[in-house]
């Protein structure tokens, strides 16, 4: 199908984008467009105006400062995939990146777009939750920072207001004790996950502490499995699988029972990654 008629405007500054969102209440921001344009083509959405933010300076780039890695919202997936800083300091994102779409999609898609879109089966929102990251947004009242746990509110629903622009995500840089794990099951490499898991932990002697398991594709948002986290921290993988308190629904890819079973399968794989010494 073809998109319905819409107008198009290139925003030259963040302030202009925020102002345009205020003037046009059914406008949408166009970043990488890899989800938005698909929904326009399918007429699942029909905004009156697209505000193209790709030309706004200073919204891309990856920087490591003071124990934190800041990734500009317009950073393309392909940029992050090739980034030395991300490979070194945010290894969970580096592991997740090759699973996001395909090469042609990663050349256009942005990290900020993926987070703001909040697809429940997408990799990056789960990584943000697993790493306890933060999101920076700018709206009519200025800039503010939102913790990952407060950002994802529901199915495709975030803490962003109608006039907010997501400007950056911030993630804690890995230390020598940081352990991460990532796995997802898909029908075809690059597709949205049937079920996926992004995880982080801190090595504590021979065991793990601060285990954070963020499952995706099993609920309205990426979901922490807190009972399984506690079991894994005590070193018992079988108990962690048994403690998985997920309640997925059937979807077009798999039944709830299959998803629940597969969540246990990938938890075992990720537990192995978490327990490996960091290279």
């Amino acid at each position, binding site marked *: *199908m*073809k*998109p*319905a*008629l*819409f*107008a*198009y*405007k290139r925003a030259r500054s963040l302030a202009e984008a925020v102002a345009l969102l205020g003037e046009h209440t059914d406008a949408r921001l*166009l970043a990488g*467009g*890899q989800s938005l*344009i*698909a929904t*326009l*083509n*399918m007429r699942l959405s029909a905004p009156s*105006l*697209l505000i*193209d933010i*790709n030309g706004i300076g200073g919204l891309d780039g990856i920087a490591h400062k003071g124990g934190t890695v800041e990734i500009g919202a317009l950073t393309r997936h*392909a940029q992050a995939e090739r980034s030395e800083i991300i490979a070194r300091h945010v290894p969970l994102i580096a592991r997740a990146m*090759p699973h996001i*779409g*395909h*090469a*042609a*999609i990663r*050349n*256009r898609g942005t990290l900020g777009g993926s987070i703001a879109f909040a697809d429940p089966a997408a990799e990056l929102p789960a990584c943000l939750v697993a790493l306890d990251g933060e999101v920076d947004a700018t709206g009519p009242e200025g800039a503010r920072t939102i913790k990952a746990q407060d950002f994802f509110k529901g199915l495709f629903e975030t803490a962003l207001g109608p006039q907010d622009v997501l400007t950056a995500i911030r993630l804690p840089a890995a230390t020598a004790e940081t352990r991460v794990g990532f796995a997802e099951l898909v029908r*075809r*490499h*690059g597709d949205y996950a049937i079920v996926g898991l992004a995880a982080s932990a801190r090595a504590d002697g021979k065991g793990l502490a601060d285990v954070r398991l963020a499952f995706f594709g099993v609920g309205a948002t990426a979901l922490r499995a807190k009972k399984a986290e506690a079991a894994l921290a005590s070193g018992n993988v079988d108990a962690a699988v048994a403690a998985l308190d997920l309640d997925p629904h059937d979807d077009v890819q798999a039944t709830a029972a299959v998803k629940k079973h597969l969540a246990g399968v990938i938890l075992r794989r990720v537990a192995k990654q978490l327990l490996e010494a960091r290279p």
Partner: protein
Amino acid sequence: MIDFALDISLTVNGEPVRERVEARKTLVDFLREDLCLTGSHVGCEHGVCGACTVRVNGEIVRGCLMLAVQCDGAKIETIEGLSDSGEVADLQTAFEQRNALQCGYCTPGMIAAAQDLLKRGGVPSRDEIREHLSGNYCRCTGYHAIVDAVESVAQARAGGKA
């Protein structure tokens, strides 16, 4: 000013192009309908099939997931340009010799995606080839002959350089 149509100027296969396009027109529809470059194909129109793969500023993209108005100032290369320049001649020959196509609908996108991998140099593994082509659907032949063709070209190019 907020517009439903905009003037864009860009380079397509080395030729300067100036057109007025509707904001809602995707890049692949612009190439096919306004410029009559019908080698890029429209399959799923939501980024899944890869038949519309073209190069924008040297990088492959989905022609259905980019708007023509976003290409103001860009350098676009389609299968017509890649073919005329001879850049993918060996891939085209290998696809033909190894029967890596039947109906040919996916082939322009396959060739563009394969060339994107091979221009990085080296000989990728079959797994790497499969992963790089994972965004391109073929609904006729299956992928074995396609992977064979891409692998043989990678080996031939590496051999030619040595």
